């Protein structure tokens, strides 16, 4: 399978170079080729979503077949998936019944999960100093509390000096956020170059 690995690497590198060149060069037929490749990427990504969902079903089916712990829950998952996908294939995502699935199941569950996070965050903040007591922890909690204090509405209006707090803390946070963004961009650049150079082959070329 070495020839397959080589061909895969050639495909990845060539497609990447064509798309990257399109950022800097607009010589025909480079833009068209770039558009073609990106369009293919959309299709492949969509297909990949379906493959991933099928894999989810296969894993749960295996759990059910082998009667592992949590197999009943897996059966519930597979059943709901099949019903939803079946109705979706037939009715389409815009059908009110499909919207029912969104309004009745997806949104409430996810929103509720996010809601209990509020209690969890308070609980974790209270126990932070029990687990770790250092300057960074104090700074972290202090910054969070001060920021919430500045943001918090009061019956008497905003607290005095909230603008200063927001200015200072905002400046510091922006500086840190910019550093983080630059760091993320550098990491993305490095990772992408490794893929284009063939050093990393996450597509199974190794």
């Amino acid at each position, binding site marked *: 399978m070495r020839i397959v690995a080589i061909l895969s690497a050639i495909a990845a590198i060539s497609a990447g170079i064509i798309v990257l060149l399109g950022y800097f060069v607009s010589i025909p037929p480079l833009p068209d080729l770039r558009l073609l490749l990106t369009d293919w990427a959309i299709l492949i990504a*969509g297909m990949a979503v379906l493959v991933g969902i099928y894999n989810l079903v296969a894993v749960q089916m295996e759990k059910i077949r082998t009667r592992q712990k949590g197999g009943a829950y897996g059966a519930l998952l597979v059943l709901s998936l099949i019903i939803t996908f079946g109705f979706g294939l037939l009715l389409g995502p815009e059908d009110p019944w499909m919207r029912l699935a969104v309004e009745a199941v997806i949104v409430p569950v996810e929103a509720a999960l996010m809601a209990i996070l509020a209690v969890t965050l308070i609980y974790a903040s209270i126990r932070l100093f029990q687990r770790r007591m250092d300057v960074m922890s104090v700074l972290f909690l202090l910054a969070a509390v001060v920021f919430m204090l500045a943001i918090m509405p009061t019956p008497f209006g905003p607290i005095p000096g909230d603008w200063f707090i927001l200015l200072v803390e905002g400046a510091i946070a922006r500086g840190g956020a910019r550093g983080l963004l630059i760091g993320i961009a550098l990491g993305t650049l490095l990772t992408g170059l490794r893929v284009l150079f063939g050093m990393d082959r996450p597509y199974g070329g190794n």
Partner: protein
Amino acid sequence: MLQIGEKPTKKNTGELEPILPEWLRDVRQQARESAEENAAQEAAQPKVQKNEPPDLLAGLASQAGADDDAIPDWLAGINPATAAKPSESPAREPAPSMAQDDRLSLMGEPEDLSDVREEKDELSEWFSRASEQPGEPFTFEPGESQDDLDLMSNLDASAASLQQPAPPKEEEDLGWLHDLEASAKRSAEPSAPRQDLGSMPDNASSQPSSGGEDLSWLNNLGGISEPSQPFDQPQGKPVPAQPAAPQEDLSWLDNLGRTEPSQPTQPPAAQEDLSWLDNLGGTSELPQPEPARPSSDVPDSSSPILSPRRTAPLSEEAENESLPEWLKSATEEPSMPPLGAGALSWFASHDLDGNQPAATQESSASLSGEMPGLSEETPSPPFGQAQETGGSTPSSESLPASNQDVDALFSMDVPDWLSNPESGVSDVSLQGAEISPAEAGASLAPVELPSWVQAMRPVEAFISEAAAGTEDQAPEREGPLAGLRGVIPLLPIGSSRRPKALSLTLQATDEQQAGAALLEQILAGETAARPLVTSSSVASQNVLRWVLTGLVMVVLGAMIGLRSQSMPVSTALPVEVSAASNAIANIPEGAPVLVVVDYEPALAGELEAVSGPLLDNMVLLRHPNLSFLSTSPNGSALVERLVSNTKINGPAPEGLGYQPGVQYFNLGYLPGGSAGVLAFIQSPQTAIPAADVENFSQYAAVIVLTDHAESGRVWVEQLDARKQSDPALASQPLLMVASAQAGPLLQPYVSSRQVAGMISGLPDAARYESVNNVPPGIARTYWDAFGIGLLLAIILITFGSLWSLFTGIRLRRAGAE
């Protein structure tokens, strides 16, 4: 070459007379002369045939601590009269065992000197008696070889480490020993601790009477029948054994290597031990040692360091009546089995105190380093094994082996007859084999080895049990073992050549075992599963969580249920919010606007609350055509919910009356992440066929609704990269509506003006609502509860952190204590 399982062949000692060193020959001559004097005394004494292999160096052990006695103990012990005397020095130090150890180490055999040390050193007694006697010159027959002299010198060196006190000297004619010593001094390297062995001649000289008896065998060395001329006979004529008491005469040899001082009660055992000396060479009685003479008077050639060893008869004629009894034993079958043939078991089966089987004949051997008093028993076992038994009991069977070992020690060059391969296990009889000095020097004709020499051949003891007979094996034809047979024993088919079974049990002390057990416990503790947190700790955590949950639910529920809107909203808009407001105001009327719905259903409530004022304001002001797009599958399902909750599609007057497919379009799901965004920016209709615009620049504005910075970053990057190549996009504002968790990370893009404006979180939305006079929306509804929630969080976090801080300090102090 002695093969495994073979018995040493007997040799006629007399045949080896010519190759003896000169000093040894002198000693022998002297022995013969003195033997006549002692013949009568020995004849009167009972002879005890000892068939045990002589312990050649047993007497050396007793001589180690001897002082500068002229007569060596072994010579002193030869004299039966003196043997009865308590002539042994009381101090028998471990030196003999040390010397024995040296000899054993030289022979490469395991040592077991416990028996040696425990047993009576009878030879040392003999030595002590001999030391009291004036040293007598001991002349060997001509034909002594340099090898013999060297052997004697080596024996002297090894025995000198015994450092035993000199035994009581006995009056004995041991002048021949002086000759031995003198001759050894001439040719051999004189070693420092020679005094012990050097005292032998003195001992011999101090014990003329016993020495004369004891040295009678020397007359028979080389095959002489009369003490005066044992070695004048031609080769092949063994010297008849001296009839003198062989046992007591040979006791010194038994005491060789022993540490214990010879006790006065040892004479009978010494008599037994020395019997082999009587039999050596066929002499019936040991020659009387010559009177002790000063060592200076002793010629070098006749001053052996140690008494000469016995040699096996060189021919069958040695077995004739002319052979003294002590030499006869040398020609007999060895009482001990040959090496490798269960030799160890043989030793174990025999009583070391004296119940020895009949001595086997001793094969003729080189006369290098022949010791007086050697019995005729074949010294078949190696020196070390001989010492095991000889040291324990003055067995005559060990004596020949000792003598053999002494010969090996003395010989510097291995004569041809030693190096010639052995043909079979049989008594060696030199039929017609006459070795003349000239022949020995001129041509190295193969000669059958004496038994005691054959016994000295190293063999592998552990193979002995399963080794097949060497006579069944064909001799090797090529290689270094060409001509030899049985060097590599041929095991029967099916047998596995396994090494000696060794115990694999680790010999660990109690302390080491205790340490190993402790380490094992420690390791077991590391791998063992740790017990879970106690229920009290888990219960306290659950209680805290329940309290917090109840508190939050009650407080927020109350605020929501009361529908309170008492908390004022600040009208000071942040810069980015103001910029967003301005950007909305600048959107052309009825222009298409792209709204990217990139948030998850989890934060649908927040984003709907945050984006509602902006969208409402934009719809109210500019009536744009909204195109909703999502880069997540569930995002497309939130479009209707968004439009519904923001009352965009609500019927007027409550809503804005937007119709799907007319005023707003749901473009659906755009997969591929950044690649999909890039594709959509390049050509919207290519990426999304349902797109209502051909070029992306046709959108008047792009509004990204996101709950995570990653999605917003992708759109910012791709749009900004596209703007550099498409100037038409330069005036297209990019607005961000982000959740409170994504806002801080997207602020740098606002600072860099890549994002025209941003509304982040409920506070910004409430202010935007307040400033733009937008109908109260979700933001205002949530505002009071939001404020109370923040206040609750601040109070809980502050006081809870202080409480946990003190608790943690207390716990750490308790832990430190």
